[in-house]
């Protein structure tokens, strides 16, 4: 049977790439250090497959056809399309269709109805964290896209349940493989809104405390109350919630947090405490 060997979260602010020269030296050190630590832990876990949960930033989907959740079933995915991601070293990224199919089958049996795609482009949300964490060579990746950009969004409660289902799917996969999960996005930020550029650091710290404690009910209540009141980018914390469910809701260890106005994002990095399989 497959098993989960690591569950991580990382912010994916585009300006980490597009405006790296504009980031202060102290924040460069903080971001590099956190991403390097994610990469170190990932390598030490020796996964065979990586599941990445990230939003789609209007690359694969549009408002004519916008899934709440989509699982990438392809043998191969495209590398990022953004012109400023041209230095990303992979144009083609291997998938893991068998695991992806098993996740979708398990989802359907558990009353989830995810969309599927056999040809996804993995945008900066997927690629910045794995690139800057130094994950190379890349393992086969199963991308899972959560709609965090265009309301109405999947509920926080449903994202948590999705994560629990994902854990069940991995642990019932018949091959003996090691699986890691990386949730990307968040923490607080605001893009294209009147509050653009504002980072709610008190919210970020409070959010981190809820994830650290692991109490799922308190976490869901907190996010239900607060997410509608802060910048739109924080909707991506739904991906962290799914990772929380997949990790067994035991709370996480914060690897790093830095408020980086130069990239408009309160950047967070974490690794979950794994429940015993």
């Amino acid at each position, binding site marked *: 049977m497959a098993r989960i060997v690591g569950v991580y979260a990382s912010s994916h602010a585009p300006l980490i790439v597009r405006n790296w020269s504009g980031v202060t030296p102290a924040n460069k050190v903080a971001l590099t250090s956190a991403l390097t630590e994610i990469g170190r832990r990932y390598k030490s876990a020796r996964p065979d497959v990586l599941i990445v949960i990230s939003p789609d*930033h*209007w*690359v694969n989907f*549009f*408002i*004519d056809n916008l899934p709440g959740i989509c699982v990438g079933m392809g043998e191969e995915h495209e590398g990022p*399309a953004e*012109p400023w991601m041209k230095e990303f070293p992979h144009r083609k990224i291997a998938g893991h269709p068998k695991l992806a199919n098993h996740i979708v089958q398990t989802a359907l049996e558990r009353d989830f109805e995810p969309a599927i795609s056999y040809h996804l482009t993995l945008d900066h949300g997927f690629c910045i964290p794995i690139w800057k964490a130094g994950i190379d060579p890349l393992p086969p990746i199963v991308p899972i896209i959560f709609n965090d*950009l*265009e309301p109405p969004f999947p509920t926080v409660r449903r994202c948590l349940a999705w994560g629990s289902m994902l854990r069940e799917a991995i642990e019932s996969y018949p091959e003996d493989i090691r699986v890691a999960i990386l949730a990307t996005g968040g923490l607080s930020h605001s*893009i*294209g*809104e*009147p*509050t*653009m*550029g504002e980072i709610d650091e008190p919210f970020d710290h409070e959010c981190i405390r809820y994830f650290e404690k692991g109490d799922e009910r308190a976490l869901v209540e907190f996010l239900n109350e607060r997410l509608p009141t802060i910048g*739109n980018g924080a909707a991506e914390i739904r991906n962290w919630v799914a990772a929380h469910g997949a990790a067994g809701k035991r709370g996480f260890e914060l690897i790093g947090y830095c408020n980086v106005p130069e990239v408009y994002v309160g950047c967070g990095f974490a690794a979950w405490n794994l429940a015993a399989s």
Partner: protein
Amino acid sequence: MRDYWLSKLFFDLQSSPSAAAEYRTDRRKVLDRYPLKPEVRAAVERDDVVFCSQRVNPYLLRFYFFVAGMSEADFLRKVKVAGADAAARSSHG
């Protein structure tokens, strides 16, 4: 609510560097391909961030004005006006 064709214009321009280049060269020619309502087209032609912000996803709004060549400082200033505008409208019922 979203304006579908305005959103589609913004989506297409941020998805295709060649379309974006064409747009910067001949905006009217590109706009002619989209069945935009007259008031929507006029708002695009005058770079009206406030008007557009009420009709498209904020990420697409930001992508579009970046692609269209508006400076980040100018966009930030104008999008904050959109917030003030919305607040004023809401305070008048």
